[in-house]
């Protein structure tokens, strides 16, 4: 557990969550204050292990031509066993309810969260 963010969004190799040190609620998106209790103190820790896919879309119309070349690609919202929801790429053959391993994988030349579905 660390007090500063050092994950993939900052060029690191981890995916991190931030836990409010006052009320214990966890946040995935970077926020400056906890909406549950107002605290501005967070501890950062790595998200590892498995998650279950809760929402999946397969994108056929990309926002621009560079990404259009990569279509179809799939994006999912996944939930960790302790209830944290995060967003990342996944396989186009994945379905809601699938279990996946949380990791990072390049998309469009940059590492991003990827949920590798177990066969």
């Amino acid at each position, binding site marked *: 557990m660390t007090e500063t963010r050092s994950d993939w969004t900052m060029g690191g190799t981890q995916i991190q969550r931030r836990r409010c040190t006052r009320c214990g609620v966890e946040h995935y998106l970077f926020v400056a204050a906890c909406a549950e209790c107002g605290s501005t103190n967070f501890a950062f820790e790595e998200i590892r292990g498995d998650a279950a896919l809760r929402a999946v*879309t397969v*994108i*056929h*119309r990309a*926002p621009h031509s560079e990404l259009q070349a990569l279509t179809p690609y799939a994006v999912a*919202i996944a939930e960790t066993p302790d209830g944290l929801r995060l*967003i990342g790429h996944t396989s186009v053959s994945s379905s809601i309810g699938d279990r996946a391993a949380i990791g990072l994988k390049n998309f469009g030349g940059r590492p*991003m969260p990827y949920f590798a579905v177990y066969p």
Partner: protein
Amino acid sequence: MSTSWIRGAGLTPFGSQQAESTLSLMHQATQLALQDADIDVTVIDGVICGYSTTMPHLMLANVFAEYAGIRPQICHGMQVGGATGLSMIALAHAIVSAGRAENILVVAGENRLTGQTRDMSIQTLAQVGHDTYEAALGLTVPAYYALLASEYYHAHKITERDAAEFAVLMRAHAARRDGAHLNSPISIDDVLASKAIALPLRLLDCCPISDGGAAVVVSKSSNKAAQIRVRGSGQAHQHQHLTAIKDIDNVGALTALNRACADGKITIADTKYAAIYDSFTATLVILLEEIGLAPRGKAAAFAREGFFGQTGKCPLNLHGGLLSYGHCGVAGGMAHFVEAYLQLSNRAGARQCPEPDIALIHADGGVMSAHVSVFLERVH
């Protein structure tokens, strides 16, 4: 009793209007609204306007006021995504009810279709997602809503065929509304055969990108022809980003509605006409079911039974909604309000539904992020 009245409203045709700009579309709608309100522009003492993606400006309301020959004492621009139109009405209502202005012009317009390339429009709108965590994944607004739809449909056993009911219904309604962007009839099979955008959403599950404008005058005094007042309003803003949604069955729509009911001392069962935001078929399904106009998983069945038709128990978006009247941004959301106002005023012509006295208008902005509910009432 402090209240505010809808004095008049104006709506331009939506679709492709190559020769128009943000300001000219706002002005067209303003002129229609002033004419409808039967007031001179000189009595407008407040201007509240919505953003335009084709004309980002530090002070659009002031730019527009100057353009339209208005010197208001209150002048605001607002940005609440798709909920901007209703947020502006709610704010105008609060200001007029408090006695701080007498005639507020609420206005929006945008040449979203012809004022920029399609890719530019899609990329600008995609910024409603988180730049680092969401938009960077190659997501678009349809993709954000597709994620919502996939989870919601799965939880409530809703099929793509079910949701397609609303694309067909909105198109049928638009056929009776002059000025609609899309008015050729479509079938469920057409929707299911249309090209994949972000599954489960296909092209005909998505609203078009349009040019257009809308304006509403919120006043201290009513229009002589029809007395329509704001009965109550409520809002909820629980998150901004899709990934921050904790519960797909509690995105804020019901909270906003409950606040509007408490404000207006009214219940949803009093609703005789519904104007619900419909950026995608999935948007409409989720909103109808969370606010309780249909039970969970049953909105499509209600649509099939005619519940939301012109002569149904709760006529819905009789102008054709964003899905078919069209979507030019803030004015797209205001078109729902204008239609509710016309229906309550008994001035909707061939698409008039039987004597509504209470209308519910609900909009969401972002990705189910901002919710505003407003009840309008016809006073006899």
